[in-house]
């Protein structure tokens, strides 16, 4: 497993308590699991995603991720409607391990209120939080 110093936490993303990341892309927000989460989970073997059109409040459970070690629920970092899901994860859940910020994204959201992004942690804040938890 990675040391805290080895974690990749890009600056252009925002992070939620439960290690989801969110990135504004045009008028959408793309969501995935951060490097810390994928590393702690180990090899991810199954991902259950919502349907496009489903709506969730910020902090509501929207997906389930199963690894060889555990099953975890994922909570949507911003409120809104799911407009796209990463269908590739169905057959290739390993993308979440191999490319957590790229091909391993989970869903795209049409956000209800983009200012919710400001309530999420920055890369530095996330790193500090992880150091504190050590």
């Amino acid at each position: 497993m990675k040391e805290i110093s080895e974690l990749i936490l890009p600056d252009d993303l925002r992070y939620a308590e439960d290690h989801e990341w969110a990135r504004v892309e045009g008028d959408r927000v793309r969501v995935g699991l951060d490097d810390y989460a994928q590393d702690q989970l180990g090899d991810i073997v199954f991902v259950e995603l919502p349907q496009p059109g489903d709506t969730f409040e910020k902090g509501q459970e929207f997906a389930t991720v199963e690894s060889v070690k555990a099953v975890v629920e994922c909570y949507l970092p911003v409120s809104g409607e799911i407009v796209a899901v990463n269908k590739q994860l169905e057959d290739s859940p390993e993308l979440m391990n191999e490319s957590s910020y790229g091909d391993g994204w989970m869903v795209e959201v049409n956000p209800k209120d983009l200012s919710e992004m400001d309530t999420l942690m920055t890369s530095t804040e996330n790193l500090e939080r992880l150091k504190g938890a050590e």
Partner: protein
Amino acid sequence: MKELLGTKGLLLNEPLLWEKGKKGRRGFSLPPRDVGSFPVEKELAGEGPDFPDLSEIDVVRHYTRLSQWNFGVDTGMYPLGSCTMKYNPKTNEKQAGLPGLSGGHPLLPASLSQGGLRLMFELEKHLAEITGMDATTLQPAAGAHGDLTGMLLIHAFHKSKGAQRSKIIIPDTAHGTNPASAVLCGYKPVPVSSNEKGILSVEAISQVVDEDTAGIMITNPNTLGLFEENITEIARMVHSKGGLVYCDGANLNAVMGVVKMGEIGVDVMHLNLHKTFSTPHGGGGPGSGPVCVKNHLEPFLPAPRVVEEGGRYVLSEDYPESVGKVLAFYGNFGVMVKAYSYILSMGPENLKKASQLAVLNANYVKEKLKGTLHLPYDRPCMHECVFSDKYQMTNKVATLDMAKRLMDYGFHPPTVYFPLVVHGAIMVEPTETESMEDLDQFIEAFKAVAKEAQEDPDLLYEAPRNCKVRRLDETTAARKPCLAG
């Protein structure tokens, strides 16, 4: 340390039965035919099923070899936390094999099943007495099913009051089946964190409990192996809001005959006969998850129920408020016979002593290993103790590596990565089965593994080395499962 338990013994490879044998080979000889041949109707003729052609010795060797690849509590220590893998006394099997019991059929009329019905009636009473509850159903097939039945009872209770509720409080140390059962009954699980001592605080509960709370699901002792000391106060608080208290009895082995659950505020609880009451667990046979309740939930218990009428036992469906059947017929009867045999052969004093020894054994392991392994909650435990891989992670050796290496030393690994509240958890439940010598051997083995973790981590990454199969590729097995031979 005595001679090492684990060795690299000779184990024989064995193919699938279909890869063995030869066309026309068989394990029996038919007597000469003494009737003339007669054409079979066309509809009845055709290809037979694809059975392999084998002799008796082919079959015997096949299953003997497979059995030698196995590891069970009859082979060695099986300290799988939260599972209570205690020894299953052979007398249980003997009683369950009695022709009058093993030959019983669920469709026989009550008049021809008096022995079996009486056994069920008395087992219900014994389980109620052991837990300090009032009534029991033996129907649920196993623990998770008992969980669900318990939740159905709580749901039926609120429904009967004409005011259904929406929330169930569930601690972060709970078994995953708890929230699953609550959701299946239409409730929303509300998670609550345990405190720095690893148990629930009254304050944490007071913040989530309200008039919409149907109940709380508490495992006591909890999955950290700690007794929920505040349970009486927590139960009072939940009751004051009109909610009920469900106790997950998975860990009853710590408190048999010691804690009267009914007196500390529990309204309904399930038990695992295949854990606490020494019936086979895991691949060894079906489970059984009876549910015990206080009087106010009795009308809702699954029907039919065994009742006594003037010294005779009958099955009664006359329970209009019952949640209905939860399993075909009356539950896993063979398991009930074994648990009944255990309870009667132990008696009240020895059941209590079994729990006391289970707790003593776990504390012994905890004290002996706590310098070797990180102990997140350093306080007296109940029947199991939870360590973590924090010390070994400095050498990048994780819980899984140590668990695999323990197999080389001849031990079944403990439960790993559960409970989730402890990072890299290693959960050891020795049960009362193990003698002090066996515990010492386990402790020595674990210390040796920890030493290797420091000096030669590769030994652990490559473990197990002495087993029939080496480390399995769990990832590929899960991502690309191959279920055929």
